[in-house]
């Protein structure tokens, strides 16, 4: 760059100052309008819901404060199970997903069986509903009688990993393919092997391109860990279910739902922030 820097003696002109004031006033006005319309909408929604004919019964069955307070403890205990499953599953999905994506991107006829296998795997597990995978893995595999007895939580984790690896592998592959071919050519021209090219040049860039999509999969996994309850694992959902069966009051479900929302909320916000930052970097040099 040239040697220019900031003109220290420059002061904004009267005109510029009045323009800035005008912009500030416009901003204040839009914030106030947004606030006003939000409050109005909230009031309308509350009035409509509270005045529905069944509201008295619904509020009793779904929003009973006494039941809610009692259910928090057991459900939170269950949520810890969900968190443990999630932590283990995320690591396994990252490894298996990367492996699958790499297998699918191998070139050369020698690797055809690997490519075909990876393709068949991702097709199968993206097509089949997670709930069915849970049943098949959770009840089918133990029935074979070749594995030692494992808690339902274990099989639930396996089922989650199987399904989510397929999704994550496809996202990663899309990212790797989105890296411009010129990057591969440049890496190979430096003498890097195919493997080195993938590891050092393609995968780091590819992952960066799909970070928002990966985080989105993570958020979706955060709530799908609740499905392991169908195998009998006492997680947050199952704990809520047990309490509902005792009291015939559905409030514990609401409590469990709120806990899952609280759990996923930081990640959802973080996804937005990261996405915005990536967009900004990609669109450097334009404001429109």
């Amino acid at each position, binding site marked *: *760059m*040239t*040697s*220019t*820097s*900031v*003109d220290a003696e*420059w002061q*904004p*002109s009267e*005109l*510029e100052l009045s*323009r800035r004031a*005008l*912009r500030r006033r*416009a901003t204040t006005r839009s914030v106030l309008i947004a606030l006003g319309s939000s409050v109005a909408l909230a009031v309308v929604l509350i009035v409509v819901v509270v005045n529905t004919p069944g509201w008295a019964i619904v509020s009793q069955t779904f929003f009973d404060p006494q039941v809610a307070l009692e259910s928090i403890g057991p459900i939170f205990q269950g949520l810890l199970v969900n968190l443990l499953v999630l932590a283990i599953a995320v690591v396994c999905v990252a490894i298996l997903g990367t492996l699958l994506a790499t297998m699918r991107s191998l070139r050369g006829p020698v690797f055809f069986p690997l490519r075909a296998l990876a393709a068949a795997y991702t097709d199968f597990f993206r097509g089949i509903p997670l709930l069915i995978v849970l049943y098949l893995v959770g009840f089918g595999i133990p029935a074979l009688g070749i594995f030692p007895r494992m808690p339902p939580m274990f099989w639930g984790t396996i089922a989650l990993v199987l399904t989510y690896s397929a999704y994550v592998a496809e996202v990663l592959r899309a990212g790797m393919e989105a890296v411009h071919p010129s990057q591969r050519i440049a890496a190979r021209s430096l003498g890097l092997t195919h493997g080195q090219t993938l590891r050092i040049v393609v995968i780091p860039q590819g992952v960066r391109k799909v970070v928002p999509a990966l985080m989105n999969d993570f958020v979706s996994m955060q709530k799908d860990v609740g499905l392991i309850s169908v195998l009998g694992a006492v997680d947050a959902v199952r704990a809520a279910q047990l309490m509902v069966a005792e009291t015939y009051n559905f409030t514990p479900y609401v409590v469990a739902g709120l806990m899952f929302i609280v759990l996923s909320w930081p990640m959802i916000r973080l996804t937005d922030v990261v996405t915005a930052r990536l967009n900004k970097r990609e669109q450097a040099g*334009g*404001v*429109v």
Partner: protein
Amino acid sequence: MSVPVIEARGVRKRFGDHDVLRGIDLSVGTHEVVVLIGASGSGKSTLLKTMNLIEGIDDGQIFLSGEDITDPRVDADAVRARIGVVFQHFNLFPHLTVLDNVTLAAVRVHGMRKTEARTKARALLDTLGLGAKADEYPDRLSGGQQQRVAIVRAVLTQPEVLLLDEITSALDPQLVGEVLDLVRELKHQGATIVMATHEMSFAREVADRIVFLEHGVVVEQGPPSQVFDAPQQAATAEFLARVQH
């Protein structure tokens, strides 16, 4: 004297801790071709972007046919619809055919009837020898052809002023000529043009006025013969000596 088509008064632009434009005054009259020259980073491109309201300014004013377009109350989209812009990298829409690229603004922004816009565009493309490419997608065209299509896209709606931002910098040398021929033709038809370029011989031939920018200020301006052959400022002479070998 008539109202200038586009006029900058004391325009300032700061990026972070770097003043890119430091009080630019520039007035462009009807049918005038003004060519901005200067080193990379001198502010040529930024000045063009502020004129099109793609970049906001930090001080000063810009007038389009007498109207202050830097007033916050102005509808920026409406202003941009009156200005034609051609970029260094063409920026044609790859998912649209040449004809759809060219007629997009005419139909969607200016409300021209689709059949009318297409007829007009085809006629214009025909005169440029691009008629056979009208239904192709941009990736089937050479760089020179793409850039000429981009120019047609900018002029189809008869903008008040045409801003050309280093439109030949991304082209192979043998393709530069066809693009410059088109600019020459537009000048003959009376277009008002502000152009940033590194093509000094073309600047000398086509410009009514040369404006030399350095470090975000206008150092010198005047007719090509004066600026190129008898520069008044040492900085101008130095720059020209470097670029003309």
